[in-house]
């Protein structure tokens, strides 16, 4: 049975799609500029293999960029958070680079590593790096002192401390950093794909622009939206499980 919450959530989509269809039916605009929903959905049967491949390529690129960029960012952040001299020397330049719009790196990456998947991945990794770096730095600079002291008093070794106290206590901050990394990567990487046209859903948007086909662009956007929703549902689920102790008082959990 469908819950009331789900019905409310679906209502928004239905109203939006209904409004679009009504506009197309009444205004009768040029089909290539404002296609109907059916025309947009017909993009898939025209090239199902190509679209699935493009979606897979984008997903793989986002995952790879997130894992590598996130791990590097978290690692460096934790290191700098623990070592004040290193933090003084490196944090300012890293944070300066974080202010530069990531898409502007695309031409440089092309010059340095050539056209292909590499500059797109590099862009994605950079997007994943900065939020994880900030989170790692924050987590390391603010260790849960009272819990560390309590664990030490109960006889915990350094290894026990890291595994059973420091890691779970800082996990909420680190996960929040990874979530931001994923959001940013999801925003930036398809743009890089669109600029370089090396495959992926971003490239499909670019092709739609080249061919002046709004149905292609809208279908690519729809695919990105669905992919994003699925990814964030997965992330939410993982977060709910790992941080279930934080939501013990929330009846929704």
């Amino acid at each position, binding site marked *: 049975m469908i819950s009331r919450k789900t019905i409310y959530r679906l209502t928004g989509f239905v109203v939006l799609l209904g409004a679009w269809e009504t506009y197309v039916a009444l205004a009768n605009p040029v089909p290539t500029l404002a296609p109907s929903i059916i025309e947009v959905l017909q993009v898939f049967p025209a090239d199902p293999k190509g679209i699935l491949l493009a979606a897979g390529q984008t997903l793989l690129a986002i995952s790879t960029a997130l894992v590598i960029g996130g791990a590097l960012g978290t690692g460096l952040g934790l290191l700098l958070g623990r070592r004040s001299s290193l933090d003084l020397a490196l944090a300012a330049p890293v944070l300066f680079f974080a202010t530069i719009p990531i898409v502007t790196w695309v031409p440089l990456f092309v010059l340095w590593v050539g056209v292909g998947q590499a500059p797109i991945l590099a862009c994605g990794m950079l997007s994943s790096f900065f939020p994880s770096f900030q989170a790692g730095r924050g987590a390391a600079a603010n260790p849960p002192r*009272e819990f560390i002291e309590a664990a030490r008093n*109960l006889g915990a070794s350094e290894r026990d401390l890291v595994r059973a106290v420091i890691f779970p206590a800082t996990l909420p901050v680190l996960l929040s950093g990874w979530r931001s990394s994923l959001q940013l990567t999801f925003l930036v990487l398809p743009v890089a794909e669109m600029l370089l046209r090396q495959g992926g859903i971003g490239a499909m948007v670019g092709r739609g622009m080249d061919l002046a086909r709004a149905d292609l662009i809208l279908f690519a956007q729809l695919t990105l939206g669905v992919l994003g929703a699925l990814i964030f549902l997965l992330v939410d689920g993982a977060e709910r499980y790992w941080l279930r*102790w934080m939501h013990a008082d929330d009846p929704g959990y």
Partner: protein
Amino acid sequence: MRTILDIESLSVSFHPVPGTVIQDLSFSLDQGSRTALVGPSGCGKTTLVRAIGGTLDATVSGRVQWDAAISTPVPIVWQDVRLFPWMTVRQNIEYVLRLRNSGESPSAADLLEAVGMSWAADLWPSRISRGQAQRVALARCLATGSEVLLLDEPFASLDAITRRKMGTFLLDLALSRGLTYLLVTHEAREAIELTDRILVLTDRPARIAAEFVRTDGRFEENIEDRIWERLSSS
């Protein structure tokens, strides 16, 4: 009676903060004794407990000598409880049992039973009240196998009724298990009810201003007034 803790000329300061928090403090604890340290808020009671419990990161001079039979660090029951919120009540106890890893230690279930908290074994600490959490914290300290407990104002944030119940519970537990404890408090009444020896501390730097001992099961007449006199004149 065997002396299990001997403190001699203990002084504590926090570099670079000027001044001394504890100055030239000496006393000892006998096995099975129940001692209170009473002092005004901010006089350095918690610092003293942390120095004795071996968790203090400060400049310490003097001697804190535990009997060789006592395994250190001696567990502290904290005012702010400090149960690990990402572990269930049972996991909090099991964690300590694993750390100490002594073959003859009781099970988590036994310890929770001893503090009357078996029913909460699978709950997160955030789902139980402050008084209940403090009972679990006591069980967690008992899981270390220690027969000595350091109690840092463990009932300070409880309401009056829970506070009284917890005091009685602590006393019964100590008597039934032969525990030695050092209770830090700023409440004279609590010290009188739960201990047989009271050390009154001065304001910073903390020094011992007076000592009261229960003889033949009783403290001297007007003990509460005398403690307050000492506290207000220090």
